[in-house]
């Protein structure tokens, strides 16, 4: 039976139970009712309880389906590698934003996406990255006067 369960679904439901428990636990610390009416703990406590209850129900239903021999739909993770590469690049770009400035961090993001996720040639990557960063700088910084982080080299 364990093999036929969708582990991704179970993990997600488990995380939601943990989140619900945290939400309810924190809410428990705050007044539920005050003399003026519901306190700050009232609404989040119910949210936490419902999160735990519904996520647990999701697990129960899946285990029941699996033990009854019903086919359980598997989660497809195809295409996750390029997505994670893209997300990792975005994360690094976010971390570089203040120390290196917008231009350098966007160039990094664009190069990783084009080379790794879209498998473009170096020449195409360089052309698209430079042109797009110039467009961003021209449109947002010069035209719309948006204040973006500037690196040690002045842009």
């Amino acid at each position, binding site marked *: 039976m364990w093999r036929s369960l969708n582990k991704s679904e179970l993990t*997600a439901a488990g995380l939601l139970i943990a989140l619900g428990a945290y939400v309810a636990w*924190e809410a428990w610390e705050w007044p539920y009712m005050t003399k003026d009416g*519901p306190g700050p703990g009232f609404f989040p406590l119910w949210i936490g309880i419902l999160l735990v209850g519904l996520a647990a129900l*999701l697990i129960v239903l899946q285990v029941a389906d699996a033990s009854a021999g019903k086919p359980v739909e598997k989660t497809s993770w195809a295409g996750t590698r390029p*997505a994670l590469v893209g997300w990792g690049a975005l994360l690094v770009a976010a971390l570089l934003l203040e120390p290196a400035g917008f231009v350098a961090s966007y160039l990094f993001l664009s190069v990783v996406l084009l080379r790794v*996720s879209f498998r473009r040639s170096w020449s195409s990557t360089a052309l698209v990255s430079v042109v797009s960063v110039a467009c961003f700088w021209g449109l947002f910084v010069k035209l719309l006067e948006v204040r973006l982080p500037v690196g040690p080299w002045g842009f």
Partner: protein
Amino acid sequence: MEVLAGLAQGFAIALEPANLFWCFIGVVLGTIVGLLPGLGPSATVALLLPLATQMNPTSGLIMLAGIYYGAKYGGSTTAILLNVPGESASVVTCLDGFEMARKGRAGPALGIAAIASFVAGTIGVVLLMLVAPPVAEFALRFGPPEYFALMALGLSMVVLLAGKSMIKALLSMLVGLWLATVGIDLFTDGERYTFEQIELVDGVHFVVAAIGLFAIGEVLANLRPADGMQQFRVPKGLRNLLPNGQDLKDCRFAFVNGSLVGFFIGVLPGAGSTIASFVSYGVEKAVSRRKEQFGTGVIEGVAAPEAANNSETGGALVPLLTLGIPGSATTAILLAAFILWGMRPGPLLIQDHPEIFWGLVASMYIGNVMLLIFNLPLVPLFAQILRLPGHILYSGILGISIVGVYSVDQRLFDVWLVTAFGLLGYLMRRLDYPAAPLLLGLVLGDLMENAVRQSLMMSNGDVSILYSRPLAATMLLFTAAILIGPLFRQVNTWRLKAAEQ
């Protein structure tokens, strides 16, 4: 008379050069994002929210709404020429639209899609203009218990149709409601769930959540080298795009059917334009004398869904503008825009800010005319956008996401947060958790908590106030029916069919 006076005021505002310019920008951007598969109006409206909030509310709203209804026009072009819906509401247009293109009638298919969109879009605005003021007047009777019940009803309808699993949709909504509690509690001034981060004291910004969940989540799901697709050529010349007299005669009923079905489905939270287009296609097929030919390239099979998905926009704006209740991700982002401008749409919006309501209504008339003009002679030009490679588009969207989020408050924390929401949006797509209920929960959570707390304050903690007043009780009964209904097999089968569509 009041309506005509309001409309005259609206046209005076919408015809100001700056507002005409922003309306133009909105409908052009809308057409472009409607054309591009994988980039929806909700992601685009979210991306432009930081820019719109720098503008005056009327101009900003005119532009954002232009994107919303403009996308409905653009979606049909991709559906007809590529058999790929540019956005979900155009799925059903593929059935007959692509078949028409295969038979060499791409021109009339594109032409009738534009004409049906124009007719129904305009009828939708007329109905919005007529229906919204009385609804707003009626809603003036609402107190906190009615508002709580209304929000529960709206959220339950969104949850009902948000995806295959209602439990997952409810969980998504609850996460959104929880996120809405992050920050300062306005009743007690105490901090909640801020993890001792000063940046979270003001709560989780809607813009950050919307851009992360919709724009970045969508980009991450599409990061792969593109497959080649067959694209039909757009016939050159306006004459080749215009449907003939027989085509227009065949579509008479489709225009009316699509306009009415679209508007009334649009008013219902959660139903949305995809369902509207499917229902109107079904109605058209049911009453047609040649129902067996549907799916083989009949022109009314294009006109009915295109009319419905455009008229739906007018309907969807009724609950947003009169009750402050959004029924979809895009209208939730529009509500977020109102909040960022320091106002809350509701029954008093038309009374307190007539320039916004009537300016928007008039701009929608103008925007629909602009869209008809673009979508007939300029459709070959717009079709070229389909050749824009994904690697340019998606890296650009990530760049705009960073700039958009950072420009709101110049805070690096928001960029990290949007990155986290982007990953969450991607994982939710993979695990089949709908993102729209989360965003709606985040947008409405604050208001819902206030309504329930105010209600219980009014009754000194007596919960019966929530269900003892007739209006609130009726709405809560409907809410219960919506949540309990799917436990019955027949209801659930219908729900799954609707959700899949």
